């Protein structure tokens, strides 16, 4: 349902394009935040981690800008139908990306504690889940950029893999704590980190879902719920 017709008032198109590009930029930033946070974590690069923390401000700023701009578009243009859905989706996607950025920052903030702890377990698993999350964000943003409801649906499906992977990593880390109580603090940090990455996956799914709504006007049937991965399946 890609609409190729332009608005009679071209500046309306310009506005929408600008809004999309703001969101797109945010998405790109958030994704690289996540990547760099993981890199910093794996390479124990405290400096890089600090930069990631610093860079999050930019995303926050962008989000506020995008939000104001979306509100301004609504106020100025009274968009309807597809246009309205698109603006609302942008508004909500912006908030979600900001959250992804925050997760990235949160991961980066834990880097110093982890690197100073000397604990080096589960790094392959973290790298793996990190790249899964990053890819998911990437796909979600691509579906947004291309207004592609099919890709969006694929993203939504892709989230399950990350959830499963999180479960197994979580088990592993719990095991490590049980193995050596010294590991408790760093492993707990790592648990939070992988939880964050799992949440990033959920949020990417949210984005995809909004893209689907914006493009088709219909909600995806099984709406995956954010913050809902409890890891309940773990035997206790």
């Amino acid at each position: 349902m890609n609409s190729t017709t332009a608005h009679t008032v071209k500046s309306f198109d310009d506005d929408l394009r600008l809004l999309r590009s703001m969101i797109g930029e945010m998405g790109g930033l958030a994704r690289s935040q996540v990547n760099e946070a993981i890199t910093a974590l794996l390479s124990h690069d405290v400096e890089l981690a600090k930069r990631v923390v610093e860079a999050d401000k930019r995303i926050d700023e962008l989000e506020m800008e995008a939000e104001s701009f979306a509100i301004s578009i609504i106020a100025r243009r009274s968009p309807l139908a597809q246009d309205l859905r698109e603006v609302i989706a942008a508004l909500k996607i912006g908030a979600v990306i900001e959250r992804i950025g925050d997760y990235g920052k949160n991961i980066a903030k834990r880097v110093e504690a982890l690197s100073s702890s000397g604990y080096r377990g589960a790094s392959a698993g973290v790298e793996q889940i990190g790249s899964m999350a990053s890819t998911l964000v990437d796909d979600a943003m691509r579906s947004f950029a291309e207004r592609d409801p099919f890709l969006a649906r694929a993203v939504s499906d892709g989230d399950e893999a990350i959830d499963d992977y999180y479960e197994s990593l979580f088990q592993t880390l719990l095991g490590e704590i049980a193995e050596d109580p010294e590991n408790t603090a760093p492993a707990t940090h790592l648990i939070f980190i992988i939880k964050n990455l799992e949440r990033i996956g959920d949020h990417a799914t949210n984005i995809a879902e909004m893209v689907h709504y914006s493009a088709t006007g219909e909600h995806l049937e099984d709406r995956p719920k954010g913050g809902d991965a409890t890891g309940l399946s773990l035997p206790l």
Partner: protein
Amino acid sequence: MATQVTEAAAEEAHVREQTLVHDEIAFANDAKMTARDVDVFYGEKKAVDSVSIDVDSHYVTAFIGPSGCGKSTFLRCFNRMNDTIDIARVQGRIELDGEDIYDPRMDVVQLRARVGMVFQKPNPFPKSIYENIAYGPRIHGLASNKADMDGIVEASLTRAGLWNEVKDRLDDSGTALSGGQQQRLCIARAIAVDPEVILMDEPCSALDPIATAKIEELIEELKGRFAIVIVTHNMQQAARISQRTAFFHLGNLVEYGDTETIFTNPRADRTRDYITGRFG
């Protein structure tokens, strides 16, 4: 010349191709008025092309569409006001409560009492406010005495939300009111003959936002009691006050359905383009 004709034909074919997108509501079971395959011609020119629609008693139905798409023309079929235009010719079937209104046995005078109309520019009669309202009931013999008539006048004005503003000056001329008040007076006048349907042709386009808001508020209140059909240029207005929206284009009914759906998620491309301001 020949190419022009061909192009026009091609254009028309294209238009026909895009069939009507209809909710099931287009053909409601308890419709107050129904139109089936209505064509309207002005001389040789077809202004409305095979439109079918059902108007429900309980809703406000809005007609939107670009200028000249035939909204007013089609609306005026519902109370046969097109009869007053010499060159206008209506084909197809329009029913009010199942009766064909273009049947020769249908009495136009009664039809128009049952299907009231409010016009674009407020057109109160140059009589007193009281007489404006009393006019309809009087010609139709709806009041048997003065007390009756007073009651009708008060009730109609009250319903039109005008009673408090004018009750102390019922003898003033209707034309001495402000534009918005005049339009409410016209609505009260239409109500006074106890119609079943009220047709409104861009009733707010001559009014400022304040007066417009008041009329919209009034329509909101009348909704349910009368079947209301309103033509409007203002999409926001259609979105605000109607429950059903019909989108016309080049004399065709392109889409008819639930207002919210039309404005948030229209089905036809032409509707979407019009609603979102993509006019080519």
